[in-house]
């Protein structure tokens, strides 16, 4: 019970110390808001709905990009994982495209889509597809050869082999790639909003900073961190409950 809350001690101590310093310092910096002001600004932003709107805008782009990347990445990854020759053909191109910083695509995406969801989610999708693709390929390659031999001996059709053996066997590792991609999606979405796109949490932070509403800027920063944490917790919970591998790791019954 007490161990569960042990992790809260440090953040609370920092907040109290922060608030205390603000009172003790003779000439506090205006740009460093007090925790109490930040909390008030966050409550205010939440109650008037502006923070929720910004959150929705960021999530819209991040999740759309993530879903596109996940779908394309998993499908292509399974396909390439099962066809090593084809993977050798595609691999150099992937290695060439992968190191391009996603933010460097902003000018191009602007040219194609202009401001808005499509521009932002296309950059998110570009950033997210590589980890999903590469981890899926590795996961399919790493499937127990014995299981593939069983599918061969049973003469499973290609579709049966993929749906009944390959996907469930690779799922737990693919899920790790998806989790990674989800975290990247939020980072890239907020970055694009800060750099150029006038919507979402990133834009909210920029405009708060430029209009000298520092408490609101901190509040949005805190809120972005909380939503990211919530998203990763949610994905972990989903994986724990629904992944086929989690069922396989049930405790052994006494022999």
């Amino acid at each position: 019970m007490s161990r569960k809350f042990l992790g809260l001690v440090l953040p609370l101590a920092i907040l109290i110390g922060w608030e205390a310093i603000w009172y003790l310092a003779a000439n506090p910096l205006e740009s460093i808001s007090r925790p109490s002001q930040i909390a008030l600004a966050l409550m205010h932003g939440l109650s008037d709905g502006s923070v929720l709107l910004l959150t929705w805008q960021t999530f819209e782009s991040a999740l759309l990009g993530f879903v596109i990347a996940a779908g394309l990445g998993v499908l292509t990854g399974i396909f390439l994982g099962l066809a090593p020759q084809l993977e050798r053909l595609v691999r150099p191109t992937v290695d060439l495209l992968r190191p391009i910083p996603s933010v460097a695509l902003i000018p191009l995406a602007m040219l194609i889509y202009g401001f808005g969801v499509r521009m932002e989610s296309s950059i998110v999708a570009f950033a997210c597809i590589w980890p999903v693709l590469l981890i899926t390929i590795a996961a399919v390659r790493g499937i127990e050869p014995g299981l593939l031999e069983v599918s061969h001996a049973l003469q499973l059709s290609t579709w049966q082999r993929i749906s009944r053996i390959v996907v469930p066997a690779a799922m737990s590792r693919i899920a790790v790639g998806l989790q990674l991609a989800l975290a990247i999606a939020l980072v890239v979405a907020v970055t694009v909003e800060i750099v150029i796109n006038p919507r979402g949490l990133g834009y909210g932070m920029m405009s708060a900073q430029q209009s000298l509403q520092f408490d609101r800027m901190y509040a949005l920063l805190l809120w972005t961190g909380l939503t990211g944490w919530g998203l990763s917790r949610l994905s972990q919970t989903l994986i724990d409950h629904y992944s086929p591998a989690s069922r396989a790791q049930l405790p052994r019954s006494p022999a």
Partner: protein
Amino acid sequence: MNHETYGTGPGVSAPAPASHTVALKTSNVSMAFGPRTVIAPLDLTVNAGEFLCIVGASGCGKTTLLRLLAGLVTPTTGTLNFLGQAINGPARDRAIVFQDYGRALLPWRTVAGNIALALEACGIPKDQHRSKVEQLAATMGLSHAINQYPSQLSGGMQQRVQIARCLAQDPKLLLMDEPFGALDAITRQNLQDEVARLAQERNTTVVFITHDLEEAIYLGDRVVVLAANPGRIAADITIDIPRPRNQLTTREDRKFLEYRHDIYGLLEDH
């Protein structure tokens, strides 16, 4: 003993009594991995309903031979025939029980789900799965474990699941690759008796690989001794011990001990 045929190399074929129909036949089958010959040209005949045990030291090509019979690998030379059809790949009427049950079962599926995989492969309608799975589980003594996952079962139980899955294919030929090698003595004896009983009841042809000579004699209608480097038939011996056999009395039987004595000498020689 006059029922033995000793072979010294390629081209030794088993005596096939005219009264039996030949189920499985290999002609001049050899296997090489690069420069290394694993199996020298080999002729082997298995009659329908026969329980053939192949015994040999490790590295003599037993498993390769079984994989050839399953159609999982293609021979370098020669042809394989099962019921008059050339073996060009795996087929569901030839089921293979892998030695390593831990790698052959789907860890994310229950016992019922693992057995049902073979039914799905055979295209059996879903509404029949439940009754068929229950029946097969009962046959293999798995009824109480039907909703458990492989990781929750002992090694012997997991191997029962794999055998049940193979039976779900309704195979005419059962290929078994040292299926009981990793099991304890008591579990092994129980499973030996069950496999012997199943093979007899269903009149299934069985090719059973083992490195355990006593297991081969106890189970087999015939024992083929493989010699290594390259793999070839060193002896082909008909086991003339009546069925049903008994773990205690059969193993103490004078004939059993004679077979053991003779074949043991052959295994040592090669």
